Each structure stands twice: as C-alpha cells, then as structure tokens.
C-alpha cells in the first residue's frame, strides 16, 4: 500500500513529463482504484477525447495497464476495460539515467541508444528503432545492426516484449496449498496476490516469449502461440510480423541488477572484498532463475558450483576453497544452516541491515547522539523496554530519555504503551517503548517520498526563477562578471539538488523495491 507522499511524488513526475491533464487522469486512478473510461470521464470532468488520449499516453509509457475483469457473470455481456495505475513504473521514470548507465557498463553504446529510445518513447517496434537510429545520420542504419543490439538487450533481459493489450483477470482466487515435508496434510496459506499483481502476471507472457525476438512466437489475444500458423508463414511475413512486435524496457531486470549491486557493496563495506566477490558470483550465476526481485534468500547452490563461479571472476581466482567457505560463513551460511549441501545466503538480512543504518542515520542527525543510542537499543531488541531501563542501558538521564523517546514517538519512529502502576495511594504511568519495524519503514519511506518531492519542486523552482540566466548565450557567460558568477552558482545548485535526488532515489529503492 503506497502512502500519501508516494502518490504525490508519482503524480508530480507524471505532471512534469506529460502535463496537467494526464496527471489528473492518473490521480483519479490512484485515489479511486480501478476505473473504466466512463468512470474516469465522470470523475475527472474532462472530455472523452482528453481522457482517452491521456490513457493512451500512460499506456504507451507503461504507467497504466488496461485489463478485462472476468467476474464469471454470464449475464454481464458488456465487457468493460478497466485501468490500473502502475505506481512502480511511474517512479522508475526517475531512475532512467541509472538504467542507461547499467547498459553502458554491461553492454555498449549502441545498446544504450536503443534503450534510450525505449525509455523516451515508452515502447517501440524494431522498425521504429531503426528509423530512430538513422535520424540525423548520413547513411541509414541497417536493420541488422539494430537487431543485433536488440538481441543483446534481450539476452541480458533489459528489454522485453510488451504485455498483452487487455489481459483477462478473474475476480476469484484460489487458496494455495503446499504439503510440508514430514507433516501430515499440512496446508500452508500463502497471502493471496493483490489484484495489481494478478493483472501484471496475466499481462506478462512467459519468459520464452517475453525475451524472444523471433516472429514465430507472436501471441494471439489469449496469449497462446500461433504455432500452427507459423510454418505457413513466408520469410517476408515473418519479417513483417517481427517488425510489428512492440518492445519496452524491462524495469524488473534493472531493479534486480541495482539490488544486486547494493547487496554486494553492503557486504564489501561490512566484511571484505573476498566475501563481496563470493556473493557477486552467486548472484550472477542465479539471476536468470530468481523467481522475483525481492528474493529473501539466494537460489541454493552447491559449494562446487559456487567455487566454479567464483573462480571465473578476475578477483575470485585468488580465493581458495577455505577462503570461500569462510566468506559463506560470514554471509550466514554456517554448517548448521546448509541443507542438502546447498548454500543459500540470507539476502533479506543484508537489505534490512542497510535499511536500519539509513533510519539510524536520520535519527542521529535529527535527534542527536543520546536519541541515536536509545533508538539503536530498541531497534536491536524485539521487546518493550521501560524508560528507566533504556536510560540506564544508554547512560542517559531518565528525564532526558523520556523527552527524546516522546519526540521519537510523536514522529512515528517508536511505538509506546503505558502501564498504570499504583504505589500506596499514588498511581502513575510507566511508559514502555518499542521499535515496530514494518510500520517504521513505511513511515520513513513516506518521508523519503516527501523529501524527493521537495527536491524536485525546488529544482523546478530554481529553473523557473533563473530562466533568464539559463537562456543567456554561452559566449557571454565566459566573460567574468556577475552573470558568470550567477551562472556558476546555479550550476552548483543544480548539481547538488540533482545528485541529492539520485542518492535519495537509491534509498527509495532500498525501502520499496529491494
């Protein structure tokens, strides 16, 4: 569930990129949930054309997913398309530069150009990519060259086939039952997927089709391969079909890549380069078989496989098996936790530790050292502690401790319960304190969205205020004087705001996407 500033920030991005009208449509989808075209027209008070065009823009840029809701009602003959706003995809628009950098590091410039086009235009066919690549060049770029780059991006899974236009999603859900080994008829209830998750799942083709370039895997409306028709197609028909397939950036893979990067860097700073190398090798070897981005544990691998993967890397060749084992132990894979000789690393723990460090740094800066110690004491434990106990453990005076704890509680960083105590004729309250981690992280994430929104507003504000200076011809700015000074100041401001927003975005991903 996204909190209020998350939505405000997403809407700010939509407004900035596509304008007020599109933003209004998007806002109604966020505030009111799934809506049909008619409902959107009613709520936004816009014309039918305005709403339609807005939806087309949002769908083109993968910010909205249309779908058909199958309510099994045979009497309901009129099937209506509903629209779902995709919060994650909207916020991903902030991190397009990071996605481009990823491709630049992993692949090449040509791939970056194709990805750039996909990010700017939302979705493109192969023909559109070729046309785009040829713009402003003397000689047209051949389809073969563009196709090769597209293949590289598909192999790396940075690009995917666009989803089905209007997948059908059922309103009912089935309880998932899994038999536990050794337990008779034990049923484990899995949290039912949200409608958003089911819509996205229904829209997504299988991996074989999703990352395949070949035209013989074109889907029909039901998402089935038209395999019977394929062999009848001529080569020319296949080429035409291939050129009509729409492609888009696969945000999931970019987020996975960035998550892996954060996991490795955190392990490097907490332990050492060797342990980071081992983790990096494990993640690289298993990235294509990870079921989802937020994997709690790495895919189990045998020691032999891990050793082989580690020794493939430049830095890993220097590590002995004992060293690799020691690193796995540092990553929490003790002999007692290894099952069937397979090692699985607790990735969730690394992410949670990184989150805790971020929250603690906020507490330190905002409330000071004493509050920082008290917060960390409560964070490390899972039970309630009373004020006096906290004061004694953290070497803070009781009155001061109460003041800081109350401040933290007021700002939703702590949970508090009161217990009345009667001593003689007097009764008083004893305050008990605790960190409620899940709620705390939701609160901190919303504050981060708030801060990101503020940074963006400030950037827009600075740009507007200093439009004159920005429009001055460059040769005039080279002359020393107040104008040059003002321009330099503006550059510094822009750099600071921009880099702060990108750094804050890393924290947004840490708390929301990882």
């Amino acid at each position: 569930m996204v909190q209020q500033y998350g939505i405000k920030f997403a809407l700010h991005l939509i407004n900035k990129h596509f304008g007020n009208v599109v933003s209004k449509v998007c806002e109604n989808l966020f505030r009111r949930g799934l809506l049909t075209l008619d409902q959107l027209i009613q709520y936004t008070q816009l014309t039918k054309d305005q709403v339609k065009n807005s939806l087309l823009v949002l769908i083109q840029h993968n910010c909205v997913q249309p779908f058909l809701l199958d309510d099994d009602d045979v009497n309901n003959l009129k099937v209506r398309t509903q629209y779902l706003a995709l919060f994650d995809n909207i916020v991903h628009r902030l991190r397009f530069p990071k996605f481009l950098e990823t491709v630049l590091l992993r692949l090449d410039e040509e791939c970056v150009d194709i990805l750039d086009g996909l990010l700017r235009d939302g979705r493109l066919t192969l023909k559109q990519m070729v046309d785009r690549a040829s713009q402003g060049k003397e000689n047209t770029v051949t389809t073969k060259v563009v196709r090769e780059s597209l293949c590289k991006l598909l192999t790396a899974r940075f690009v995917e086939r666009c989803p089905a236009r209007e997948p059908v999603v059922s309103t009912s859900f089935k309880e998932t039952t899994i038999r536990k080994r050794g337990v008779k008829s034990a049923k484990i209830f899995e949290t039912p997927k949200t409608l958003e998750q089911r819509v996205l799942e229904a829209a997504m083709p299988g991996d074989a089709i999703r990352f395949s370039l070949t035209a013989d895997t074109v889907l029909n409306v039901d998402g089935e391969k038209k395999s019977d028709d394929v062999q009848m197609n001529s080569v020319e028909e296949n080429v035409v079909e291939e050129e009509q397939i729409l492609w888009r950036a696969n945000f999931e893979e970019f987020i996975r890549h960035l998550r892996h990067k954060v996991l490795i860097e955190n392990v490097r700073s907490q332990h050492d380069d060797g342990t980071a190398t081992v983790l990096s090798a494990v993640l690289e070897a298993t990235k294509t078989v990870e079921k989802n981005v937020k994997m709690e544990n790495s895919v189990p691998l045998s020691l032999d496989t891990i050793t082989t993967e580690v020794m493939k890397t430049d830095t890993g060749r220097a590590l002995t098996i004992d060293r690799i084992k020691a690193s796995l132990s540092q990553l929490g894979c003790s002999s007692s936790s290894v099952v069937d000789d397979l090692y699985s690393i607790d990735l969730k723990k690394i992410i949670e530790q990184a989150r805790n460090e971020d929250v603690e740094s906020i507490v330190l800066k905002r409330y000071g050292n004493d509050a920082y110690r008290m917060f960390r004491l409560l964070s490390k434990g899972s039970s309630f502690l009373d004020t006096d106990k906290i004061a004694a453990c953290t070497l803070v005076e009781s009155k001061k401790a109460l003041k800081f704890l109350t401040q933290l509680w007021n700002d939703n960083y702590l949970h508090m319960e009161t217990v009345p105590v009667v001593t003689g004729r007097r009764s008083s309250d004893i305050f008990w304190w605790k960190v409620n981690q899940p709620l705390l992280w939701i609160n901190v994430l919303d504050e981060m969205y708030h801060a990101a929104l503020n940074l963006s507003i400030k950037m827009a504000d600075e740009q507007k205020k200093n439009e004159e200076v920005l429009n001055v011809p460059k040769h005039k700015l080279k002359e020393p004087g107040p104008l040059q000074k003002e321009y330099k100041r503006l550059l510094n401001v822009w750099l600071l705001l921009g880099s702060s927003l990108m750094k804050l975005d890393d924290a947004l991903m840490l708390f929301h996407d990882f």
Partner: protein
Amino acid sequence: MTHLQGSSSSLKRKRQDLAIVSESLTDAERVLYNLIHSKKDMGIWTGDMKRETNLPDSIVKKCLKLLQSKNLIKDVVNIQNKGRKHYMAAEFEPSKEITGGDWYNQGRLDTEFINLVKDVCLKYIFRQKVATRDGVLEWSRKSGVFRVEVTTQQIDEILRALVLDDDIVEVKSTGFGDFSSVPVGRICYICKSKGGIRGEQKSGAMASIPCGVCPRINSCTPDGIISPRTCVYYQKWLDF
C-alpha cells in the same frame, strides 16, 4: 570531576558509637536520628520522617539542623526525587538507588566522565585492533588514567554504550588473523571508526538533505506556509 579526585564509593567512615551519640541528644533528636539511622544507605525523606514520627514540622526542621551540625546526619540527593530533602546517617554511603549509580555525581549524570572513559576505551580497542572486555578492564586499571577504580560493570556499560554509538562492534573471535590472540568463540570488540575517534559522522541519503533532519517535515506541504519554496533550511543549504 569528583571520580578522578578520589571521593570514591570504596572509602567508608567507621561507625560511630551509638551510646556516645544518645547522650547528647534530646528525645526528639534521638527519635529522628534512630529513624534515619535505621534506613541505612537508603536514607529517608523529611515528609516520611514527619509521617512516621508524628513530630510537628518545626521540631523536625530544628532537630535535623542540630543533627547535621553535630555531623550525625547528612543530606543527600535522591535521584528519584531531586526536589525533596533526603537525609542519611553520616556513616553510610548512599546506595545506587539513591545516587543513580556509578555514573552519577550529586544527582547528575557525569557525562564528562562517561565521555572520558569512552574515549580512553575506544583508543585502546583501536590500538589493539581486537580487545576483550577483560583486556579493556585490565588496561583501564593498569594505565593509571583513572584515579578511581573502574568496575567490571562500568566497563560493560561503557562497551555497550560504544556499541550503541556504533563506534565498536561486538563479534565472536574466529581465532584467525587479528583474532589470533583471542580464544575462538570469545566475545570481543573491534573498532568501527577509522581513526579511533568517537562520533564519526555517518550519513545516509535522507540525512544528507535538509528534509531529512527537519523537525517540521510533517507540517511541510508543497504549497503551504512551510514548503520547499519558502524553506529557510533549503536557502541555507543552497547558499553558494
């Protein structure tokens, strides 16, 4: 800095002879003195004295003044209720419940002393690279930095505070490398700060921007009185 000047809890006066005391006291004084004496190192509040002895306020006040002038009783600060007059027989040292513990001096937390002990312990751990609690304790006693003997409990409390400050990390010895001098599995401490200096600034992304440390973030709105456009913290931050 009384901890460094030797007025430690280890020094106790000899008990005075009660017989000598009783001869020079009036009945009221004797009643009060016996009551105060019976409370030993916990002492007693004047309000409780009046309640238990049923003596009028003026008599109690007068007697307490006289007993104090004869050095038979003393007033102490009760950390639980600093505003109340609390008395104790002269020969007793106030218990930890009254004083607040080893780190309290005259009813106040001696933060200067605490910080001094923290600095000294952290520097030792930094120099040693790996240190056990016993190592820190032994060194604190041998080094002569402190005039009073620092107890095991105090060292434990200081180490816990340093862990909570994120200046040191509590780990278990692996027996290898820097841990070779520590038995495998023994709890020990390593320095997190690079220079052995306390309070090295660590900043997450949010803590590096004005909004991250702003006490008014919950009142801030895009177009409100407090907003990014009007924010004084932003103006200061962008003042190049």
